């Protein structure tokens, strides 16, 4: 044993029977985020959540720094969060260092993001009353799940502050204390990065997000009526998934970190539900014949340019061809199906279902929205899974596969966590040797 490890561990002064080392301070982390919005990364570094997301594993720091509210959640910016009028009004009391105006600005800004989209999908309007003691948020309908929406809101301050282009410096006065790291910098090369957000990176330790991304098809009304993949036939869905061979695509593009799926809400967001048995054994080989003139055609569109989606597009085109369809250009008379990659920003199935409806125009009834925003998590899950099944039965969406969202981390960088939206939390990270 030489150089890096200890060859003679002796000399004991009141020697302990056991020990573990404390974190070091200092050092900078180089982040490569080719496919991630730099603004989203900056927001993750420079702001802490207004309410601790229940999906984020509760670290000891959060537990210490953010006392629990009456709703059971934790916040370092609020001292109270109380409902009135059955959840149609919520009163937010800021922590001593946080002003009501600052808090109000945070919530207004937040409602421009996914929490606002969820409320809009439920046709709920919001109004604010700012007083010296806090903020009253008035809603046009009771929203018992309003605290869950606030989990998507960034608080007024975070562990780091911008320090020029693509650089962030630690804040000595950060809520919860100065972070261990000195700073964070964005780099253009994965080879120089300590932390790589690319989905295909393999070097270093892999942190896996609490739930995966989902890929599914969104056919338009003409495509739903034509049913080009013969999904409505008896056993059609099982045959479609057998032919799709999603596992092979995932093995090539994501190192096998994913699975074929027949539902929209991924594991980690919604619990397991009963499904018809998957087909066993190998699917019969696809038979391709020349398409006769006048064969029907479908336009396949995709919203992302990554290789996994490209592979899916090629495979879906093959499946169409085997069923007597060709792929055509989008036009007024051509049925269309979009391949979309979707990631719910929240682990709550009710809110995730509202966001699906908002983003893809899936229909909801007033009874649905009431259940999706209910106080009881089991009520929200029941409604979400009922609505999901209805959309699937109506062919509104065709689930394809899920793929894990990962972050690759230098093994000497400790204490990195991953948020539900796949972005890193570096507030409590430290270098083994900065």
């Amino acid at each position, binding site marked *: *044993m*030489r*150089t*890096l*490890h*200890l*060859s*003679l*561990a*002796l*000399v*004991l*002064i*009141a*020697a*302990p*029977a*056991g*020990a*573990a*080392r*404390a*974190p*070091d301070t200092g050092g900078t982390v180089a982040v490569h985020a080719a496919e991630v919005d730099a603004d989203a990364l900056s927001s993750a570094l420079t702001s802490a959540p207004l309410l601790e997301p229940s999906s984020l*594993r509760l*670290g*000891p*720091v959060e*537990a*210490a720094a953010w006392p629990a509210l009456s709703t059971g959640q934790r916040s370092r910016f609020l001292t109270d969060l109380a409902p009135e009028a059955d959840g149609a009004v919520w009163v937010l009391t800021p922590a001593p260092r946080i002003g009501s105006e600052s808090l109000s600005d945070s919530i207004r800004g937040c409602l421009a993001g996914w929490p606002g989209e969820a409320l809009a999908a439920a046709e709920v309007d919001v109004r604010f009353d700012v007083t010296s003691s806090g903020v009253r948020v008035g809603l046009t309908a009771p929203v018992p799940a309003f605290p869950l929406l606030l989990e998507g809101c960034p608080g007024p301050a975070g562990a780091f502050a911008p320090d020029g282009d693509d650089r962030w410096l630690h804040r000595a006065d950060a809520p*919860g*204390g*100065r972070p261990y790291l000195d700073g964070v910098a964005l780099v253009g090369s994965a080879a120089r990065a300590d932390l790589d957000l690319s989905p295909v990176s393999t070097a270093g330790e*892999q*942190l896996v997000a609490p739930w995966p991304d989902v890929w599914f098809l969104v056919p338009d009304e003409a495509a739903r009526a034509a049913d080009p993949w013969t999904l409505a036939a008896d056993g059609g869905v099982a045959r479609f998934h057998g032919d799709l061979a999603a596992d092979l695509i995932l093995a090539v593009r994501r190192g096998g970190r994913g699975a074929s799926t027949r539902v929209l809400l991924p*594991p*980690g967001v919604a*619990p*397991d*539900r*009963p*499904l018809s048995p998957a087909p066993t054994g190998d699917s019969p080989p696809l038979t391709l014949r020349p398409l006769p003139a006048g064969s029907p055609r479908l336009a396949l569109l995709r919203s992302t340019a990554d290789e996994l989606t490209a592979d899916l597009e090629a495979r879906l085109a093959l499946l169409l061809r085997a069923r007597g369809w060709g792929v055509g250009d989008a036009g007024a008379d051509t049925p269309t199906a979009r391949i979309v990659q979707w990631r719910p920003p929240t682990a709550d199935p009710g809110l995730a279902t509202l966001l699906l409806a908002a983003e893809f125009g899936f229909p909801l009834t007033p009874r649905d929205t009431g259940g999706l925003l209910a106080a009881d998590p*089991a009520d929200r*899950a*029941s409604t*979400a*899974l*009922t609505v*999901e*099944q209805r959309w699937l*039965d109506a062919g509104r969406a065709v689930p394809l596969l899920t793929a894990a969202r990962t972050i690759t981390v230098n*093994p000497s960088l*400790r*204490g*990195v*966590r*991953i948020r539900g939206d796949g972005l890193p939390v570096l507030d*409590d990270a430290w270098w*083994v*040797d900065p």
Partner: protein
Amino acid sequence: MSAHRLAVALLGLLLLALASPAGAQEPAGSSLAAWLDAFSTRLEAVADGPRDGLTLTLTAGRGVDPRRVDKVLLPHLQRRLTDAAVVGPLLRDATHQLSISVSLEGDRVWAVGMLSGGALPAPVALAQDWPVDRELEALLGTRPARPGQGRWSMERLGTLPPGVLDLLLRDLDGDGGDDLVLLCVDGLRTYLWSDLEGRPVQDAGPVTLPARPWNRAPRGWLAWDGDAVALATSAGHRVRAALPLDALTPSPSAESPPLPLRQPDDPSRASLAWGRPASGATVVVDEAPSASGVRALQRWPGRDDAWLWVDGDGLLRGVGPAGDPTFPVRRVGDQLVLAELDGRAGPELVTTEASPPGNPDRIRIHSLTPELDRLTVLFEGALDGSVVAMDAGDVDFDGLGDLLFVEQTEGRPVLWIVRRRT
């Protein structure tokens, strides 16, 4: 456990038994009964629900043993539905069909049913969750023993407060069995082992830690300092707390200055502050001090010539009477315990998996020769979360060492025990 506490618990059980009606199906506090009742109530409330009969199927989802679903859950659910007589009889071919999937999601168990048929215009989902406790864990059989490991058992003892930093075992009540001192971010607690319940029960605390200007505390350590508990955190606490815990409050005036991580003035030595303030081990190195540091260190109980540690690269290292160990170098996690667990001569080495925080971890118990020339895996237990603290002692009065460890799950931390069957 004190005699007084035992007497009270026995009296409580007696009263419970007397209060239960003859032929009651479940004890009043049964988690299984409460969970299935909540699910059944949802089913019974469905408009156009199954009043004329129901075909019921139950399947095992994520993390649940299919055999337990058939043998345990299905009979209990059938009996609950039949006794209430709100839904119709359970038939093989009824107009309504209910297909249920049971799965473990984090620290909760879910039953999700899809009800269809009859006058329902579309399938209706019914979901009901329940926190997993020891009863449900045992009934669902989510930690089946691996082949060849039948001599060891790994059991869930319940959940703990959030933010566990460290734990220590020692007999606190003089009953001969070890009890638990737990350090969390919000303070110090003690738990006494209850032989009646088969798990530790909180006795005192939390005694709140004094506020620090630097309040980030991702690491904390406990150590015995005579009859007192010495604790340190990476937030800078250096505190002693006398026991029993509710008699004293840690005083900030007892704090000592923070210990340095290294002393760079002597290149032949690396002096490491272990976070255990009463110790302060100095480790001598042959050459320049390691740039990688040491993550965890354990001494062979009763000897000063055998040490094992995790180096800065996460590799298991050691030094024995014959010098360097000859077991193959392997990557492990940052938790290390060296303690007698199987009643044979020599301690066992306990390691965790070198997995990132929050990712699935693994507990491994190894046998170890005194010469440190061979490591053999005796037991391996898979977990969903990270191991954040562990210690060994004899909690159940059987004379054999028990390993207690804390798993940080997506919900509250979970306390586990691994022990050798007698």
